[in-house]
Every structure is written in C-alpha cells, then in structure tokens.
C-alpha cells in the first residue's frame, strides 16, 4: 500500500507543478490552499466550484451583451461582466483566465467587436480547460486519501 501511496503522491506533485509551469495557476492558488485545513478540508473545492459557476453565468452575460441581433452592442455591459470575471479569476489564481480578461477588458474599452468575440471564445475554452485540469488534480487527491495517505504540500519554488 505504501508504494501505491508514494506513487500517487509523486503523480499528484508532478501534476500540480505542471499546472503552475503551464500557466494555468499562479501564486494566488497557493494562497488559497493555505486557507484549507482539517477543519475546512473542502474549502478550495468549494471556492473553485463557485468560480466555475461564476464563469458560466458571466460568459452567458457577455454573450448576450455581444449579441448583435438584439440591437447595438453595449460594450460597458460586456465590460462589467469581464471586470467581475477578472476579479474572480485573480482571486482563485486562475492565471490564464485572468490574462484573457485583461485583453478582453481592453477590447471592450476600445469597442472592438471582433476582438471581444474572439476573447469570449477563448475565455470559454480556457475556463473549461482549467476545470478539467483541476478535476484531475482533485481526483488524484481523492485516490491518495482512499489509499490511506496524506495529500502532500507541493512546493512550487
């Protein structure tokens, strides 16, 4: 059993590090993990669930605001949703999503329709990619715990 736990822990460590190296996550995710303890063991998962729900809602708002068939595009409305998503992604350490929001915000301010539409598509792809990656990471955690081990602290630096 110990060999299995050690292997799973290694996999978890490598996977987590790769998420940082590939730019999916940044320091703020590390800070988020510090807020989890034995008393609140699901804190990170809870916050991320809220975040992904937020993504769905905000992206839907942006899509509606960018819908030309309903009239002229209200870029300030798009911008308001982008601002919210930028804030949320920054707070959870979703590095790529946040970076996209920065560009998206600039396109909104410039009232650049094509730029906005492109960003909207990218943001949708990006949050879904992050969601899949994090689900894999959480699954590895579960496997370690089920095997009777502890989830290791991963030192990114």
């Amino acid at each position, binding site marked *: 059993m110990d060999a299995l736990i050690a292997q799973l822990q290694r996999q978890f460590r490598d996977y987590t590090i790769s998420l940082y190296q590939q730019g999916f996550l940044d320091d703020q995710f590390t*800070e988020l993990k510090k*807020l989890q303890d034995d008393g609140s063991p699901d804190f990170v998962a809870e916050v991320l669930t809220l975040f992904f729900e*937020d993504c769905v809602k905000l992206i839907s708002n942006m899509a509606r605001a960018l819908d030309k068939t309903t009239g002229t595009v209200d870029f300030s409305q798009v911008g*308001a949703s982008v*601002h919210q998503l930028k804030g949320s992604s*920054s*707070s*959870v350490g979703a590095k790529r999503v946040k970076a996209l929001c920065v560009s998206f915000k600039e396109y909104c301010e410039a009232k650049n329709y094509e730029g906005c539409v492109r960003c909207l598509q990218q943001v949708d792809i990006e949050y879904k990619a992050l969601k899949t990656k994090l689900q894999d990471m959480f699954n590895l955690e579960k496997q370690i715990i089920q095997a009777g081990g502890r989830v290791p602290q991963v030192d990114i630096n």
Partner: protein
Amino acid sequence: MKNGCGSGSESCLSSMEEELHVLAVDDNLIDRKLLERILKISSCKVTTAENGLRALEYLGLGDPQQTNVMKVNLIITDYCMPGMTGFELLKKVKQESSNLKEVPVVILSSENIPTRINKCLASGAQMFMQKPLKLSDVEKLKCHLLNCRS
C-alpha cells in the same frame, strides 16, 4: 504597509483581549467568501455585506427604526462596487457624528491607481490594500490595528 510588531504576530495576538469584529463588504461572492475565511482564520468575527447599502444597514445607518445595530471594530470594503462604491461608503462612515466615525476603514482594490489610493487615504481610510488578499496581509493588518489601539 506599516508593521508595528517587533517580534512577529505572536506577540500581537497574545495582547488581544477580545475578538475583532469585522464587517467585510464586497459585491463579488468569491471575494466575500475568501475574505471571510481569511478573517476567520485570523481569529476575527466576520459579518459580510454584498453592497454599501447593506453595510450601512448593519451599521445602523440605513433604517432609522432599526434596533439591531452591530458593533464593529473594522470595516474592510472593496472599492469597485455597483451602486455605492467603497469610497462613498468610507465617506458616509467618516461623516458620522457617533463613534462610528472612529471605526477604521480599509479599502481593497484590484487596481493600483495612485489618485484612487490618495483620495481614499485623504478621506480617512486607514489603509488601502491590493487584491487579491493573502492570509499574511490580514495578519499584518491586525497587528497594525492592535498596535494603533494601545
């Protein structure tokens, strides 16, 4: 951010007699949840409000007939909020003739804009801090506040 502690946060916590009660104001649910968690880990009692109006209600400034008024030791508010900004909330608190105006108000913002920072500090904000907030930020803030009190 100034840190008034000499040997570290342990000495500050041991000199604390009662819990700090913090009113945390932010329109973003995730930020509210994070702020609440950070404050609870830092041994604070936390009440959250999702906008300036709700915050004023809790402080007893909303409804003149309100009897259930909370006593808070600290207000932490986001700057960018729809309706009433954190800056407007700050001014309302500082304009009070009651003890409420003595309550320190900390402004949080994701944007580091000098004119914004200066106008908040000039209007009586205790501190201006950048989002996203870390656990260590609140530990330093508490230390600073507790030292200021004595």
